[in-house]
């Protein structure tokens, strides 16, 4: 049963299995295990980013395609929900319409970009997605009449999902709509993740991997490389858009900085590479570690910076705002030395 749920792609390492189970248990029981608002927010963020990173891994790790437009698709989903909720009023129908239209927009855009650039040269894709994504980000901040510009949009979601909805106590924790909302995010993320796992372990996923390894040969065997790459792009875009919708439902706010910025694109890249390219479990490990680090490591760096305040330059290097630099260094090193990431390392350790 479990093997079937995982589409036959087992973790294949004891440490990895333990880690994954730990993450699953912590996320599933987050409202009851941890106290307060911040851990719950972190847990929801982890769920959403796992889906987002996994969908990016479908492209980068399995397809060998580098895209810089993933945040654009993420943003399309988020803005879909935001706009629908603003114009249709609070309600589940607005959320549904927003999610679906966001996903459709993402697929159409992905199809256009894909047909255009994947046809010529895979390397064009990276550059063209970068250009298109930045154009979309500029458009969103300029058409402030529709999108709220730099300030973004704040809107109302159904009352059932807000903390105003109290539903008694369970295991010593007050059950509110917020927790219901969390479980909506958690369940949807879990389903999406298992779906992605299904996709990469299907014949389609195998062909994609073959194309990554040697596109010329795959073409010679008779697979239409452009078609497979384009479909992978569309699938990944649609999943990213749904993840964006979940993010919008959870935050009740959408703005360029939280959904469209290039920084988030870099975060996604880091998560994929650190967790491990070409395996869905890498997304789980990478996203969890990264979001935890983002939330808690910056505090630690702040105290380290204060502790070394007397020394020259070092406090500047340890400033919490500079944590991206350390991640950048970590990123370069992991591309060189652990191209298979944490998961690849764990799996290797078992076989040797």
């Amino acid at each position, binding site marked *: 049963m479990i093997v079937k749920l995982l589409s036959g792609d087992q973790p294949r390492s004891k440490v990895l299995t333990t880690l994954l189970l730990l993450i699953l248990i912590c996320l599933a029981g987050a409202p009851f295990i941890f106290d307060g608002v911040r851990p719950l927010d972190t847990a929801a963020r982890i769920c959403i980013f796992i889906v987002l990173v996994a969908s990016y891994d479908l492209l980068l790790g399995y397809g060998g395609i580098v895209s810089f437009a993933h945040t654009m698709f993420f943003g399309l989903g988020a803005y879909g929900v935001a706009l629908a909720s603003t114009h249709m009023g609070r309600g589940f129908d607005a959320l549904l319409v927003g999610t679906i239209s966001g996903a459709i927009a993402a697929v159409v855009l992905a199809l256009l970009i894909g047909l255009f650039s994947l046809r*010529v040269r895979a390397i064009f894709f990276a*550059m063209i997605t*970068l250009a298109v994504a930045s154009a979309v980000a500029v458009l969103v901040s300029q058409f402030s009449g529709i999108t709220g510009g730099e300030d973004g949009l704040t809107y109302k979601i159904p009352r059932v999902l807000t903390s105003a909805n109290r539903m008694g106590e369970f295991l010593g924790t007050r059950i509110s709509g917020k927790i219901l909302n969390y479980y909506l995010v958690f369940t949807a993320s879990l389903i999406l993740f298992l779906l992605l796992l299904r996709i990469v372990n299907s014949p389609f996923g195998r062909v994609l991997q073959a194309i990554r390894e040697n596109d010329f040969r795959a073409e010679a065997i008779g697979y239409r490389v452009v078609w497979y790459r384009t479909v992978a792009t569309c699938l990944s875009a649609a999943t990213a858009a749904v993840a964006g919708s979940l993010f919008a439902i959870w935050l009740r706010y959408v703005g360029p900085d939280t959904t469209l910025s290039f920084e988030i694109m*870099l975060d996604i890249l880091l998560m994929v590479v650190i967790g491990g390219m070409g395996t869905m479990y890498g997304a789980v490990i990478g996203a969890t570690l990264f979001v935890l680090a983002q939330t808690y490591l910056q505090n630690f760096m702040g105290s380290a910076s204060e502790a070394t305040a007397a020394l020259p330059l070092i406090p500047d290097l340890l400033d919490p705002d500079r944590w991206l630099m350390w991640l950048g260094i970590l990123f370069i090193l992991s591309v060189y030395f652990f191209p298979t990431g944490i998961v690849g390392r764990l799996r290797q350790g078992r076989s040797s």
Partner: protein
Amino acid sequence: MTAAPDHKPTFAQISLIEQLDKALPILLVPILVVLGFLAIGAPSSWLTLTVSGLAMGMMIFIMASGLTLVFGLMDVINFGHGAFVSVGAFVGISVLIALGEWTGTASLLLNISAVFLAVVAAMAVTGVMGWGFERVIVKPVYGAHLKQILVTVGGLIVVEQLIHVVWGPDEIFISRPETLKGAITFAGAAVEKYRLLAVGVGLVLFLAMRMVLRRTKIGLIVRAGVENGPMVEALGYRLRMVFIGVFVAGSALAGLGGVMWGLYQEVITAGMGEKMMVLVFIVAIIGGLGSVEGAFIGALLVGLMQNYVAFLEPKLALVSNIALMTAILMWRPQGMLPVVKAK
């Protein structure tokens, strides 16, 4: 024995259409200028916009030329190229601020020498940085596009953050040297002096680069290397050394572009290189990766397009460039003047 097949060589001139097709990329710039005139109507604002479009195009070309040659020569795509633009701008502007007395007076000689020193400092720093970047970041990942993209993006992040560490997190405002401020009025149109200077510098650089590539031995090796690297190596040239030279020169040019762009905008941020990369990539793609002439035409097109559209419909400036790229890729999927690869 069969008779030899009839062979009738034709000496007909190539048809007008074919000639036009060949020359069209070069004709596109004047066509765009004329279209801009028709769309804008007022000659004075058209002239102002054309000059600023050309100035912007020249600056983008300076940044893009290194990137496109590096790709042509070694198949290396450097997403960290924008880091050199930022570093160049910061170093150059710091020198200019340090030479505040020179830039503050209205003496042309002192102003120009201050800018010259700033440019030299910026190019020296970015050149050395380019050498280090090639050594540490690019060299271990030759031949693997995916890793190249990832690693150079990582390098971009680290360099950008280091700028924050050295120069602080805030943007720096700068005013141009006294004699470069203000505008000349020509035929009723105000043309900023600095833009004229930028056009001049860009033109001189382009012609010099063309000279080096067409008339010198090293240029010959570079062009041959772009077309067929293994063959050049078989003839005994160490292409790797040439490549390092081109990488360093390209980085230094990016630094020069950074200083010029910083003075043009009169404000510099650590993220400016990253923002410029979008335009630089568009230019490299529509010009044809590896082609310096293509990048020149592409840069002028992008600069003019950006300025005309920003005047007509400010919100669509960047989108218009994407549209331009789309149109050109539909017409020529490999870019306007693609380099013929013998590989």
